[in-house]
């Protein structure tokens, strides 16, 4: 794993090309185009202790309100905490881009975001995940930098869970570092070319709770390498492998495989000619 990360970092620094910021695990500070509609379906799968494959399904509708604002609506389903796949709530996410310093082959952008989710199911888990496990809210900041050949993004957020089962943690601080690199095409000629991007993302989490709740505290750090294909400059396929490299949170999945498909429709409603 460390070897793979080193190879990816070597690739970022030594080869020519353009960096990409369509990160599989996090959102960049850039927004979708005004009136663009994105439809996303993602699965997160891990093998439980009794060798059963457990899956989470995340459906997402995204919309670019204008150059500064965008909104997502989510629906969550999973059998992480049950025998069958159950509905695990809904959520909404807003992002506001407040800083853009663009020039040729580089930009620095900053955005603030918020997420609020509602999950009617009570799940007994010592992990904090407001996207599919608990109801909750999050606020955060994202800064994305494109430096000719390297795209870097840092996402920081504070998360609070609303629903408590007694063992659930209540708060977490999350920090993600993402990097992306385009490996194909070497030269753009048309929209039909399939793009292939490599990413590596580090995702850290530190969770806290009230003092009498012994289970619900700890920290974790996951590393997520991904490969991404973009078809017709419109449809995206991400395949990611998440591996925990540090974890003191009880019962957290040690490794998982994620697959995500996204399709974008430009000028969805307002600007049809």
């Amino acid at each position, binding site marked *: 794993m460390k070897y793979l990360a080193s190879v990816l970092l070597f690739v970022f620094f030594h080869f020519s090309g*353009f*960096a*990409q910021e*369509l990160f599989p695990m996090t959102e960049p500070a*850039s*927004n*979708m*185009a*005004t*009136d*663009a509609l994105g439809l996303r379906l993602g699965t997160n799968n891990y093998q439980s202790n009794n060798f059963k494959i457990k899956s989470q399904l995340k459906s997402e509708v995204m919309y*670019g309100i*204008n*150059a500064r604002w965008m909104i997502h609506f989510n629906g969550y389903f999973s059998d992480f905490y049950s025998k069958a796949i159950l509905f695990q709530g809904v959520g909404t996410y807003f992002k506001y*881009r407040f800083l*853009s*310093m*663009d*020039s*040729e*082959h580089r*930009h620095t952008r900053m955005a603030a975001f918020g997420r609020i989710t509602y999950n009617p199911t009570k799940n007994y888990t010592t992990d904090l995940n407001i996207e599919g496990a608990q109801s909750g809210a999050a606020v955060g900041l994202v800064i994305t930098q*494109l430096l000719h050949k390297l795209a870097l993004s840092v996402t920081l957020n504070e998360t609070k869970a609303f629903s408590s089962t007694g063992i659930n943690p209540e708060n977490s601080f999350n920090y993600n570092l993402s990097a992306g690199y*385009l490996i194909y095409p070497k*030269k*753009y*000629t*048309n*929209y039909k*070319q399939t*793009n292939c991007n490599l990413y590596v993302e580090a995702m850290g989490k530190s969770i806290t709770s009230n003092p009498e709740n012994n289970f619900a505290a700890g920290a974790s750090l996951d590393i997520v390498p991904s490969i991404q294909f*973009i078809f017709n*400059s*419109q449809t*995206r396929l991400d395949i990611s492998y998440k591996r925990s490299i540090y974890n003191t949170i009880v019962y957290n999945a040690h490794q998982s495989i994620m697959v995500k498909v996204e399709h*974008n429709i*430009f*000028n969805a409603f307002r*600007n*049809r*000619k």
Partner: protein
Amino acid sequence: MKMNTLKKITALLFALTVHSMLASAQFVSVEIKASGLTCSMCSNSIDKALRTLPFIKDVAAHLQTTSFTVTFNTDAPIQLEDMKDKIEGAGFFVAGMTATYHFNNQKITNDSHISIEKNDYHFVDVSEQILNGDVAFKVMDKGYMLAKEYKKYKKKSSIPCIKNSTSCSPTAGTKTYHVTL
């Protein structure tokens, strides 16, 4: 039969020659370079946004340089600002905009204003000359070039309305573009 075809071709060539001689003053094309993007999905979003403008006939994208050549419908008035707004709406910025316009004996001098399609075009940093045929001019306003380039340009400009960001439109309510050759 052959004679007929020959006549048709001659007539067509004649018509084309006359048409090109009498070509009315109009925008031929606009070249826009966008900044802040590399991926073809981003270029696609700009391409699709530009195509929603009623006066745009076609967009040719040059993905490697993230630039776009826009051609127009002849019956609709062309507004350069609308194209800039579409690019910003897609989440990016204009790094450069050069318009090619077909002029018919248009005299210009430095710091002179001419009216094109109900907009005012203020020619700056040009020598006195007569414009004829397809001539390209570059827009020198804020938002039509990289922010730091504009800052430099504004600082060294000797034209008062650019230096002090004041209005110089000869007709109230008319949009003024500052352009140079």
